């Protein structure tokens, strides 16, 4: 089981002081947060991709991830999400392969469509083509990583003749791909078809919805012959805020919740906590709630938390990570308990390389 954090890189004024960080402060803070993630023993750091205010997330995540790779040793660098709709799949193939080489294989990525309508026309696309773009672009991306020379023609980009995407993936192993979607069954179907990972945002919507999306993915993963449903590769998001005492956590987090662009004006913090997986409370409450996620998605492979959101100052975020580091052993132990032996871990560069070598050896034996 992997644990990590993911960020959307929002530049939001701290509602308790009214002050917003500068873009540079936010960007540098993101690097500090990632370094801290490794320090406390987390496995994964993932960044969003954004092209518009109020975000200072990278427009091309490998720019940030390469910088973090240079300052960390173990951390897997990922995205949440890489836009498979508006990015040229050729650039995704090239930039992430380059990042693989720089980071010695500590890369995977999560593909998403992006739900901000105006972004599409900025890149010459139309949000109404979101699903077809995700399908065509990913089909091309896979070929660019797996075939040395590609001839290709599709609907959404210039044809390619005798094209070689460079650099080639590290050790000939493409980065593992997760497909993220809040609500589109087609994306769960896509992940299942290829035997890729499926990531459920698990922040904004109720558990019942996550259960439905993951259930569909698992059922179709088995249908497409990649293994049994409980061997499918599932990741979940989640948002937490902790203090030693529940009351302190709730009191401190409430203004951030009430003012957050994604939450404000809707249900109360208490209602939102009961309706969605948001957990604001003591470390023990976070442990119990998080271990409960298995009850509706089955044993899964990756748990990501959002901790640096809605104007929370860097100091607070780093304190959150200290607390997360404290409960990490208990989370790891809890998720290991009763986990069937045949449930796989999330693929890594090393495991994919080993699989590839095993296949080659098998081929040679025949």
């Amino acid at each position, binding site marked *: 089981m992997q644990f990590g954090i993911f960020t959307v890189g929002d530049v939001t004024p701290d509602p308790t002081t009214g002050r917003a960080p500068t873009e540079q402060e936010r960007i540098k803070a993101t690097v500090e947060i990632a370094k801290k993630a490794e320090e406390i023993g987390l496995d994964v750091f993932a960044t969003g991709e954004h092209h518009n205010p109020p975000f200072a997330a990278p427009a091309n995540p490998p720019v940030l991830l390469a910088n973090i790779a240079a300052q960390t040793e173990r951390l897997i660098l990922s995205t949440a999400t890489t836009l498979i709709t508006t990015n040229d799949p050729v650039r995704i193939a090239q930039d992430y392969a380059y990042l693989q080489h720089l980071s010695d294989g500590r890369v995977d990525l999560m593909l998403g469509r992006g739900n901000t309508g105006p972004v599409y026309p900025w890149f010459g696309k139309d949000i109404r083509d979101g699903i*077809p773009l995700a399908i065509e672009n990913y*089909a091309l991306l896979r070929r660019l990583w797996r075939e040395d020379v590609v001839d290709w023609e599709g609907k959404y980009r210039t044809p390619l003749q005798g094209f070689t995407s460079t650099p080639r993936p590290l050790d000939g192993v493409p980065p593992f791909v997760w497909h993220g979607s809040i*609500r589109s*069954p087609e994306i769960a179907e896509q992940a299942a078809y290829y035997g890729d990972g499926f990531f459920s945002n698990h922040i904004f919507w109720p558990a019942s919805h996550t259960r439905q999306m993951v259930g569909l993915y698992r059922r*179709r993963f088995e249908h497409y012959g990649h293994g049994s449903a409980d061997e499918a590769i599932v990741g979940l998001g989640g948002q937490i805020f902790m203090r030693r005492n529940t009351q302190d956590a709730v009191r401190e987090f409430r203004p951030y919740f009430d003012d957050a662009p994604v939450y404000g004006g809707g*249900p109360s913090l208490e*209602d939102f906590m009961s309706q969605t997986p948001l957990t604001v409370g003591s470390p023990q409450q976070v442990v119990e709630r998080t271990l409960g996620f298995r009850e509706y998605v089955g044993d899964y492979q990756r748990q990501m938390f959002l901790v640096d959101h809605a104007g929370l100052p860097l100091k607070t975020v780093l304190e959150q990570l200290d607390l997360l580091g404290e409960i990490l052993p208990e989370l790891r132990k809890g998720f290991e308990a009763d986990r069937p032996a045949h449930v796989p871990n999330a693929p890594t560069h090393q495991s994919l390389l080993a699989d590839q070598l095993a296949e080659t050896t098998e081929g040679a034996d025949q």
Partner: protein
Amino acid sequence: MTRRIVVVTAGLSTPSSTRILADQLAAATAGALRTRGEQVQVDVIELRALARPLADNLVTGFPSGELAAAVGLLRQADALIAVTPVFSASYSGLFKTFFDVLEPDLLAGLPVLMAATGGTARHSMVLDHALRPLFNYLKALPVPTGVYAATEDFGNTADGALAGRVERAAAELANAVTAAPIATRPRTLADEFDEPTPFEDLLKA
């Protein structure tokens, strides 16, 4: 087979003339269907009780609790009776919000009886100027007769008065429910979860 009628009523007071009209329409439609040999189940959704979840849904993007249950009823419906009070020359905001938060195509192909209430008959065109375009946009099948009841109608039993309009509209709705479907209802999100479009088809599209 049991025909499921869902009544959506946006009245705010108790008793509500909107609810009274809704009940009359539901009873008349159920009667008309039983006359045609059908079994009938009627479920009533009072939007007032869902005011907060509806406001929350606008912000969060998902229906919570009772609202989710109400949407579930609509998903199974064979007919809809939708009744709103007239506010500022149109349907009420609460009424519109309910239809705003439904997933696309949920009402597609569904027979609908539209009705409205108001203080005077001067607003009766709201049925054809506001409600009918709304349900046409939602690809529902509104029956030709809409029923408008002004305060005075509730005390008037003269010819051509409220009861006659209710009977006519109910008969039209019953006919629409029992007629062969004009077209199969389009796939909804729920269908996609039950029976996903195979990825090979998505690739070819």
